[in-house]
């Protein structure tokens, strides 16, 4: 019975996945299908397969970003937030307004935060909103660079019209695959991120392969996206190709690659680790809007052609799209707030649990950087269990027992982000190393453990 209830609650996530498949798949293959370089059936098949692969293998990175914005802690709340986002996307698509799934999701999470009185991590919100500006700009820059390089290469090699057509077609297929993978990796956080904490699945071990419950959840979300691609994306794909600017097949290829690159850099845990290992600033892993990246890329190509390109851009359409970027999160937040009220008061469901006012992982990381005393940092969590800081400092055993569940939770969190376990790599004096830093909870536990060992009979 509990499983059935959970699956019913998951249905809104699947609806959101369907909406995303119907809309966002056009970002990967829309220009290719609209320019008739690739058949819709081919595009839909490739898109579906690689969205699922991306979701299962790399979905966790961007999903964490939304968790930092607001951790919806009750399944009915997650259901309602996902439903609000899905309804926003579906309604805006229906009335012909451009919609972005990630923006709708952010709006619905903010609606939940407002309704539940949960604090919104303003740092994460700022980063997410910044990506809404950065991703189209990055898309435009990537598109301009790529297009210039490609044109130079074509002028140098002078390929036959048919060879160029063949290469562009192959490129569109590869870029579409890459784009689909990126949509799966980056967008699945939007679809199933709500339900990570309440996954009804258990970890599976198939021979040498271990499939976690989160991966199974993302697989389900990926399938929902694939259904959306097959059932409703055709019309969107056919219109996306020339809604803003009539694109040549070569420009279509550049747009898809640029869009995929933008999505990739905002969802790749491997890239994050690589940048960190080189001592470079890391790029926040956040779900970004593929539609914004595509629009930015198209604009980049238009601007590259100078005044002629600027004249060809349909500025009225662009204004409509930009207005959608502002209204989507607002509408989702309002719908989310109203739906949460209805679900809580009409259906009597608990849409949020008013507990654990402790620190969110993002806040813990900031506190780590500020080098605050360990017990001061974990004091709110101890207080939730009726343990005062002074009592904890005098009773290491009690401190250890109380903090143990939090320490496990933090390790799970670090594991999901693909970071090494803090306890395995921590060296004395490394407390400001973000990748290897123990959470304050772990540090406090270590101290308590040391005190216990030193105590007589410990």
């Amino acid at each position, binding site marked *: 019975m509990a499983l059935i209830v959970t699956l019913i609650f998951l249905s809104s996530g699947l609806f959101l996945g369907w909406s995303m498949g119907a809309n966002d798949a056009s970002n990967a293959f829309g220009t290719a299908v609209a320019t008739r370089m690739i058949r819709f059936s081919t595009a839909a098949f490739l898109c579906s397969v690689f969205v699922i692969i991306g979701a299962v293998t790399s979905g966790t990175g961007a999903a964490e970003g939304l968790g930092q914005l607001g951790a919806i802690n009750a399944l009915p709340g997650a259901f309602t937030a996902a439903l609000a986002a899905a309804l926003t996307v579906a309604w805006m698509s229906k009335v012909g307004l451009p919609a972005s799934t990630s923006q709708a999701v952010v709006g619905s999470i903010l609606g939940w935060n407002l309704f539940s009185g949960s604090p919104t991590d303003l740092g994460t919100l700022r980063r997410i909103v910044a990506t809404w500006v950065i991703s189209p700009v990055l898309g435009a820059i990537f598109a301009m660079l790529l297009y210039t390089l490609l044109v130079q290469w074509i002028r140098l090699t002078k390929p036959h019209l048919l060879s160029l057509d*063949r290469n562009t077609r192959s490129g569109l297929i590869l870029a579409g695959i890459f784009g689909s993978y990126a949509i799966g990796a980056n967008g699945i956080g939007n679809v199933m991120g709500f339900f990570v904490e309440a996954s009804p699945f258990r970890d599976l071990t198939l021979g040498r392969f271990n499939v976690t419950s989160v991966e199974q959840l993302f697989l389900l979300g990926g399938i929902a996206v694939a259904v959306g691609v097959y059932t409703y994306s055709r019309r969107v794909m056919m219109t996306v190709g020339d809604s803003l600017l009539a694109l040549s*097949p070569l420009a279509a290829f550049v747009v898809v690659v640029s869009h995929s690159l933008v999505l990739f850099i905002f969802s790749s845990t491997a890239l994050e680790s690589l940048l960190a290992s080189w001592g470079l600033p890391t790029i926040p892993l956040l779900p970004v809007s593929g539609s914004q990246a595509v629009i930015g890329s198209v604009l980049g190509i238009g601007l590259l052609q100078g005044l002629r390109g600027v004249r060809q851009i349909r500025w009225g359409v662009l204004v409509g799209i930009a207005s959608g970027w502002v209204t989507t999160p607002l509408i989702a937040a309002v719908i989310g707030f109203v739906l949460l009220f209805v679900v809580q008061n009409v259906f009597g469901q608990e849409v949020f649990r008013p507990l654990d006012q402790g620190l969110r992982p993002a806040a813990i990381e900031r506190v780590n950087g500020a080098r605050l005393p360990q017990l001061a940092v974990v004091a709110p969590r101890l207080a939730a269990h009726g343990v005062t800081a002074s009592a904890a400092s005098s009773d290491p055993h009690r401190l250890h027992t109380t903090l143990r569940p939090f320490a496990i939770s933090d390790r799970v969190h670090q594991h999901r982000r693909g970071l090494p376990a803090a306890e395995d790599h921590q060296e004395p004096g490394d407390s400001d190393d973000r990748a290897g830093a123990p959470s304050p909870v772990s540090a406090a536990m270590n101290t308590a453990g040391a005190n216990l060992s030193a105590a007589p009979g410990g």
Partner: protein
Amino acid sequence: MSNETPPLFGKTRFLEGLIDQFLDQISEGIILVEMGIKAYLSNDEDTDICLEKLNQIIEIKRRCSELRRTIVTMLYTEMLLPDARGDVLRLLGSLFELLDEMGDNYQELMIVQPRRMPEFGQDFADLTNMAIRSVQAVVVAARTFFRMPAAVRDHINEVRVFEDETDKLAWRIKRRIFAADLSFEQRTQLREAAAMIDALADKAENIGDSLSIFAIKRSL
């Protein structure tokens, strides 16, 4: 339909080969027409050379027609060049029409056999030369379109220059024909012959105009 069977792999190269073959045939046809007209001008008779050239032109027209059909079929069945295949088909169709018209005009010349044409031999030879250069320039432009659309403009300019010169030569011949002591029938026949040759350059110019638009659409 051509007997050429497209391979399972390498269809692009195969089709590139067919298009090159088509353009080669057009160029060959143009040369044959030029040789045929010059042979007629030098002999004023329905000689074996003229007939041989006529047969060769007819054979080339047949091969070109087959090649064009094969190319059209492949472009559509294989969904190649979705954005440019309309332009490519129109270009190939126009070039075939040009060859067809040249062949028909030459055939007509063989049928009508205007008397006293050799008296204006040098004038007609100059006119033919200029018209043929115009036609050849447009075939070169068509070849360029498939590899360097931006360079098409240079060749199109040549076509326009040659067409202008052809018009001037045709005007001069017509004036000389009507100034000469000829019957009305002879004057009409010679004027028609000059107009037929001049029309080839006009046709080439029209193809060049379309081609310049196709090239602009493909320019990067």
